[in-house]
């Protein structure tokens, strides 16, 4: 039996709502607040208020994998070098959390993955240290330099930092959020990525989706709209330019190799071909979250115990 693609995609979005994992979400928030407080306590006047970046801030998260990023903006004079900043924050977090979490250096962040709690839940938070460009300038321009941990190779040759305005990155997707529910498409592509073991960075998918919305007239049902984005990626991923909204000199398209781009293009092509051939395949490309099966709502209704006027009792609200 053919699958109703629009309904299915809608169910996928529903079953991946972060609100379904309220418990885990709350655990993440509590840990994040705790880390935030610890950083402020440790660095005092050297640090501005840490803020959320990542998909939570952008409203594009899915509940299968939380990516909680905490941006830690330091003052220019807090550290002599970006490397010192990165290592200092790492050392601090390692000392504080090594008995309760795996703490490791990542490309631009320090990953803290807490050991599973008694319910088997794992909280993972990435702390991204950044330093303002000049003393007190952050308040004016929101710009920060990030340190690129060298084990992962140089991102841009000749520099060990990325200059980025993370606030602008977050704002970018927030600003674009109205257009025909762009964020829905980003969430769906994330679902595809997570379940199909694919590698493109979420940031890349976000930017190319925004670009697709920029270039195309995106309309119709949920599938038609998603398909437009997929087709756009298929046809343009190898050539498209995706400047970082946080730093126009940073070309995010360069973060993927030509080879990875053409693999992504092939993925998009195969996916459309298969789904158009047989709508049922949409269910494996975009699966529901098993943990939160979408109930059949067709029998739900505003029921009445009997056809008679209802007289509500006096009631107190707060």
């Amino acid at each position, binding site marked *: 039996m053919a699958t109703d693609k629009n309904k299915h995609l809608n169910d996928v979005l529903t079953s991946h709502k972060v609100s379904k994992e309220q418990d885990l979400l709350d655990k993440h928030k509590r840990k994040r607040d705790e880390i935030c407080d610890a950083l402020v306590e440790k660095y005092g006047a050297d640090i501005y208020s840490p803020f959320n970046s990542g998909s939570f801030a952008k409203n594009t998260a899915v509940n299968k994998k939380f990516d909680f990023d905490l941006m830690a903006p330091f003052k220019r004079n807090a550290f002599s070098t970006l490397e010192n900043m990165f290592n200092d924050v790492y050392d601090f977090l390692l000392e504080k959390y090594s008995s309760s979490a795996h703490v490791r250096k990542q490309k631009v962040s320090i990953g803290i993955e807490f050991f599973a709690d008694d319910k088997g839940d794992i909280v993972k938070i990435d702390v991204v240290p950044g330093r303002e460009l000049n003393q007190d300038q952050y308040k004016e321009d929101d710009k920060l330099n990030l340190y690129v941990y060298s084990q992962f190779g140089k991102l841009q040759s000749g520099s060990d930092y990325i200059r980025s305005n993370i606030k602008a990155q977050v704002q970018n997707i927030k600003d674009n959020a109205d257009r025909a529910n762009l964020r829905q498409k980003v969430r769906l592509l994330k679902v595809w990525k997570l379940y199909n073991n694919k590698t493109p960075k979420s940031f890349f998918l976000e930017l190319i989706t925004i670009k697709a919305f920029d270039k195309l007239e995106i309309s119709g049902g949920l599938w038609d709209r998603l398909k437009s984005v997929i087709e756009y990626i298929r046809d343009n991923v190898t050539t498209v330019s995706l400047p970082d909204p946080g730093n126009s000199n940073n070309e995010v398209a360069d973060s993927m190799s030509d080879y990875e781009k053409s693999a992504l293009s092939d993925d998009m092509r195969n996916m459309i071909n298969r789904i158009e051939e047989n709508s049922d395949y949409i269910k494996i490309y975009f699966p529901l979250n098993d943990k939160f099966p979408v109930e059949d709502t067709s029998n739900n209704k*505003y*029921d009445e115990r009997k056809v008679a*006027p*209802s007289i509500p009792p006096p009631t107190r*609200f*707060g």
Partner: protein
Amino acid sequence: MKLRNEEIGLFLEISDDLLRTIRESGLLHYPKEFGGILIGNYSTDKKIVNVIDTLLPTSYKSSKFSFERGSEGLKEQLETLFNGAPSLIYVGEWHTHPDAQPLPSGTDIMGLTGIAKHRDVNITSPILLIVGLTPASMELGFYVYFKDKIYRYETY
């Protein structure tokens, strides 16, 4: 204004005029809470609730943080509406949260649950509109009681 909750597949429609009326009533009591009951009907398939009007209570107690609606005179009014053409019924409640977000408090949830389970109430899924109110702005939160849980509607 049209809203729905995807998870349970139920819809809600309410006119802008009525929302304006509610806002004005709320502002008259600002910064204290205020509220009333919602009148309307269900679509033939019972998937959509149409909120058509509000009845304001003649007896109530209110403060900055709470509102207690009385029921004086409601029975007569609701019976008249039920027998009218078209027939209108009680579909839920609204109240304001002055200078606060339209999120349901524990009291709100208990209140709505109590209504849904009350023997004089025949509908199983009463709705709750909370109006986050300031003199300059209004933020709306629509909720419904459905099978022992509270769900929030979203615009679509």
